[in-house]
């Protein structure tokens, strides 16, 4: 058997534990797909795979048990899925050749405002927009989008996590001082609201922009103002120093988010260690330091009047060096 594993991997196939067999990863930007595509996935799994399908942690489908010599045939069947990518704006050169890259992972999203009342925006739509901005790309980057700071998609474990924010607008003339917002913010969120003289005072520097006060308010005294985003950066799992992402930017608009992501790829391109088979962006930042990362990611970015940037990213609190704290 002769197969170029590097090419297979870039084509979204995996080298598996079963010699001679591969597994195909199907991208589902935003984790949302018309049900009509399920027939195609079922067809590939039954005819070429072992009849099973795995739901990946990145909201895609993985079809295991595909004989390596069937890869070209399977690739031809993927045309409708690649056409869907193209419809999002992803440049696809050959619709018969399977996925053009796999390094930049599927952009994941929580279900967002189409279904979830807590979500501050349509996360799926933004995931699809970002897919068209960054795919195909061989750089290993993980991006996830979540509608509110509950962070159900685990944006804090990504290189770039995008969290929806809304600026709540308060009309004191409609507030009946029921305190629903104040109690909720204090108990479940950051305690950014205080009642003073029968009027709610909001600490804008403390507020996460989660929008819960708007949801709680029975009088529409709190309503939705402009939508913003918070970016948490450089979270990761892995065998070397896993960590939760930290807030890099907040209260920025969608245009700024997209520019920051475009800049991330330029930054990787400048600094990646090409002697390695691949280098995950988090480890590049470990080398260049945060200040270089920050400077280059903010090139040409308009943060707007409310935008805030982290002076440094406070990574601490978790270490794989267990000898520091384990007995024996």
């Amino acid at each position, binding site marked *: 058997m002769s197969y170029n594993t590097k090419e297979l991997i870039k084509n979204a196939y995996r080298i598996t534990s079963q010699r001679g067999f591969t597994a195909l990863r199907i991208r589902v930007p935003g984790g949302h797909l018309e049900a009509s595509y399920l027939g195609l996935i079922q067809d590939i799994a039954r005819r070429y795979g072992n009849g099973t399908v795995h739901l990946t942690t990145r909201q895609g489908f993985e079809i295991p048990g595909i004989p390596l010599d069937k890869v070209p045939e399977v690739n031809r069947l993927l045309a409708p899925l690649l056409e869907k990518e193209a419809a999002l704006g992803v440049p696809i050169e050959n619709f018969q050749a399977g996925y053009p890259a796999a390094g930049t992972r599927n952009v994941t999203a929580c279900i967002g*405002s189409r279904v979830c*009342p807590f*979500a*501050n*925006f*349509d996360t799926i739509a933004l995931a699809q927009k970002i897919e068209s901005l960054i795919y195909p790309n061989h750089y290993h980057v993980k991006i996830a989008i979540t*509608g509110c700071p509950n962070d159900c998609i685990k944006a804090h474990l990504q290189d770039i996590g995008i969290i*929806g924010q*809304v600026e709540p607008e308060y009309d*004191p*003339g*409609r*507030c*009946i*001082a*029921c305190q*629903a917002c104040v109690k909720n913010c204090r108990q479940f969120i950051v305690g950014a609201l205080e009642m003073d*003289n*029968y009027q709610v005072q909001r600490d804008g520097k403390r507020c996460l922009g989660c*929008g819960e006060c*708007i*949801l*709680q*308010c*029975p*009088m*529409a005294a709190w*309503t*939705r103002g402009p*939508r913003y985003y918070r970016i948490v950066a450089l979270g990761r799992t892995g065998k070397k120093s896993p960590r939760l992402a930290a807030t890099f930017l907040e209260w920025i608009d969608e245009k700024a988010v997209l520019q920051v992501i475009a800049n991330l790829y330029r930054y990787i391109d400048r600094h990646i260690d090409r002697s390695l088979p691949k280098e995950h962006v988090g480890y590049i930042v470990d080398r260049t330091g945060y200040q270089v990362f920050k400077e280059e990611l903010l090139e040409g970015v308009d943060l707007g009047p409310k935008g805030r940037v982290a002076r440094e990213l406070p990574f601490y609190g978790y270490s794989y060096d267990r000898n520091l704290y384990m007995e024996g």
Partner: protein
Amino acid sequence: MGYKLTPAGFGALLDELATNYQIFGPVRYAGKGRLAGTDLTTYGPVRSVSDLVWDARTTFAPKEVFFPVKESLLYFSGQEITEPSLEMKETLVFLRACDLNAVSRLDKIFLANGPEPDSYYARRRQHIHFVLMECQEGFPGCFCVSMGTNMATGHQAALRLENDHYLLQALAEPWIALGERYGQPARVEPVWVEKNPLTVRVPERVDIALFQHELWREYACRCIACGRCTLSCPTCSCFSVQDVIYRDNPERGERRRVWASCQIDGFTDMAGGHQVRADRGDRIRFKVLHKIYDFRRRFGINMCVGCGRCEEVCPEYISFARCVNTLNQLMEVQGRDA
């Protein structure tokens, strides 16, 4: 007198009205709904014909136009007390038949309940004039026919949106003159909703034994005491009083009244810490019986006008209509057993 108006004609009519009146009606505020990507339809200033929303029920009722959410009752400065004066433009409110009937309920409470009319309400109310927006059919959850509030009186004019034009029934000035100026004479008979998909049967009498019924225990678990049902209700009139001391001068301040809700914690708190209705099931019982029984015993009409808002705004899917129908069934069973 009846008139047919084009949207442009009706727009010109509104423009002329706006010189002498402030105009309120159902208005849609884009992106201002509770949930992301949704709109808020509620009462607000009407600046043009296209502002008027016909295809949705408002989240809040028109009462806030003349029963403000917050109203300063008096200002105090040291030993002096001043009552704020009111300069109010004549005000037109576009509203549905149920909501117009609701005004008569508010009038009962504020003008005919105590020994004196409520002067703050009365002085606003005299400047308020109504234009009926005819319903071709109700919205989901409406039960005006059951409550007898599908028809209304007390409006200056009635308006119907029919295809691409408006039909105006002018019952008083300035509407007759305006109809003559901006419309074509037409035969316009009032149209009332005659059937709702939802029927509510109000029990004639509610036995005090039902106070202990397990029905209320179910609501005690389900209700979250947010108060939306009452704050959106066109007939709820409860308010609380706040004494606000100005932060920069504690010698000065004001006394306000502010909407309150029998469903929200604190409503029945008394000095010494006693709560009359701590249990949420008891609060719902109190509200429901006020709407369909206690008010009627005092004023001869039911308080509820069947607008359906309380059910639509409840985040816990609690249905007032179902509750009333359940009470009616329980009373019928009791009647049979007796």
